[in-house]
């Protein structure tokens, strides 16, 4: 019996634009089990960014329900949401979002600081995880001394270091050339083989094919199992 770690039921998100109410997500039903590699495929303006923000607990649904690790995510205080993000989610962004002043290792240590991990342990854990993504030699380098692919590996290491429930990637290959993008996808597949749960948001059907499951989001509606975008 697969372990259900994420469940959305009839999830609706609306935004108020002046007088007009815009419905971005129109009743999403989604379940994710531990060990899934889910690709969310959709064109821009489809609501996939909003879905990502809600999965990542950066935003909360207007109606419907969202359970993450058995906990209902709703309009909770910002402090509580930040703890949930720190514990449950490992973000990977299109533009890597590394802090330019910090070394690769220090960047990876950031979420551990907010988790209250002591310095010694932070160093050990960040070094271990950077070795895992193949950057043992580059730990002391700053982001501008690294290639795009290497920077995204640092970002992946940063997402992995807290051992979150879900790795949440937003167009992880969007800023990379095809070959480097391919290498990053190979790393994602390896992580999937190791049993990590991955949710990847993309507009690129070829990239989406790397997932074990694909859902398609169009105009705020989600449909499962459509492979030909």
């Amino acid at each position, binding site marked *: 019996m697969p372990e259900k770690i994420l469940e959305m039921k009839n999830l609706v998100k609306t935004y108020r634009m002046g007088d007009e109410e815009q419905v971005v997500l129109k009743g999403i039903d989604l379940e994710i089990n531990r060990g899934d590699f889910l690709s969310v495929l959709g064109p821009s303006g489809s609501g996939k960014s909003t879905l990502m923000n809600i999965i990542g607990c950066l935003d909360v649904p207007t109606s419907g329900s969202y359970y993450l690790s058995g906990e209902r995510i709703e309009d909770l205080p910002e*402090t509580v949401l*930040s*703890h949930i*993000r720190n514990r449950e989610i490992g973000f990977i962004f299109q*533009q890597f979002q590394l802090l330019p*002043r910090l070394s690769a290792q220090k960047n990876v240590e950031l979420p551990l*600081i*907010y988790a209250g991990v002591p310095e010694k342990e932070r160093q050990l854990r960040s070094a271990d995880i950077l070795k895992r993504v193949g950057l043992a030699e580059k730990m002391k380098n700053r982001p501008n001394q690294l290639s795009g692919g290497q920077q995204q590996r640092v970002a992946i290491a940063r997402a992995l270091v807290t051992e979150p429930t879900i790795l949440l990637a937003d167009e992880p290959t969007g800023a990379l050339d095809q070959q480097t993008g391919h290498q990053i996808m190979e790393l994602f597949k390896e992580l999937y083989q190791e049993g990590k749960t991955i949710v990847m948001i993309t507009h690129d059907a070829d990239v989406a094919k790397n997932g074990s499951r694909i859902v398609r989001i169009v105009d705020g509606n989600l449909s499962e199992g459509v492979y030909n975008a």
Partner: protein
Amino acid sequence: MLKESIKMALENIISNKMRSFLTMLGIIIGVGSVIALITIVSGATSTVTDQVASMGANTVTIQVQGTPLKHGLTQGDVNKIAELSNIEGIAPTISGQTTVAFDGNSMDEISLQGKNDVYFENTEDVISAGRIINPIDTENKSRVALIGNDIANELYVGENPIGQEIKIGGITYQVIGILQESDSFAQANTNKAVMIPYTTAMGVVGAKYINSLTVYVADEAQADTTTRQIEGVLTKAFNGDDDGYSIVNMQSILETIEEMTSILSMMLGGIASISLVVGGIGIMNMMLVSVTERTSEIGLRKALGAEPKQIQLQFLIESVVLCLIGGIIGFGLGVILAWVVANLIGTSFALTASTVLLAIGFSAVIGVVFGFMPARKASRLNPIDALRSI
């Protein structure tokens, strides 16, 4: 977390060297001028009060002008003052003009001063050679005299005047000592003066009245009360007329000087702290720019699990660190400036622990006050908007 925040703050300040320095300049000037002014004024104050205190902080001086009916104080009036409580000693002065002569040579327009032992006990460096007038001289109305430096040089050429005779106003005295040479421009020039026991002046020379009195009080804190009691005795002595004398309480002069300089110091410090406020506004401006520039960093930190209050603390620490660095530099410059000025105008230079604490405390408070708004703005950024602003 705190250590990390301080580290990050320093890194950010160093990575924007020029901007950080220009921002700090306001704090540097502000703290520097406050510290310099306070130190200079307090140095000048202590110099002035030391000078006043060296004249005797425990003294009450009485100048007697007299009334048409009574031209001065009598020994009886002095004895009444001596009976008051809190009196340590009374030094009366009788002053007049006389001539001196020795061995056929004479000098005119010599100031004659009748004094007692109390005066000499409470005044430093009166004589340069010989001995002072002692209680026995006063008691016995002895014919002994201390002579001024000019008299010693002119009348006793090549001789030691001590032990020799001198004629003062035609009466023969024995010279027991020579007065300290005084600066020729000094107000109380005693180069052409002779001092004899005041009892001798009254009994032998025939002076009727005492012209001035210095009263030494035992407890300075009670000086005001004692002064009022003395005034009572004096007013009675002149039959209720209080125009016959003037009385000055040194302790109250000291207090007045201290009060005035502390008001001056506060006023100058207050004016200088306006520049601190301007500096603080500069800090706030830079912090606001910094928050805007680092919007995506703030968004990222929030996505990674930073609580709003952790973001707020980070920016607040950055502003406090910036102000503290500025405060320390400003403190150093202020102290140097105060030292230079103190040396130029010749006042004392003293750095108190409270000045150091004031400088550091002030800059930290400015950091908190003017960093609060930008830090709160940072902590309230919506992470989604913040992440989008790449």
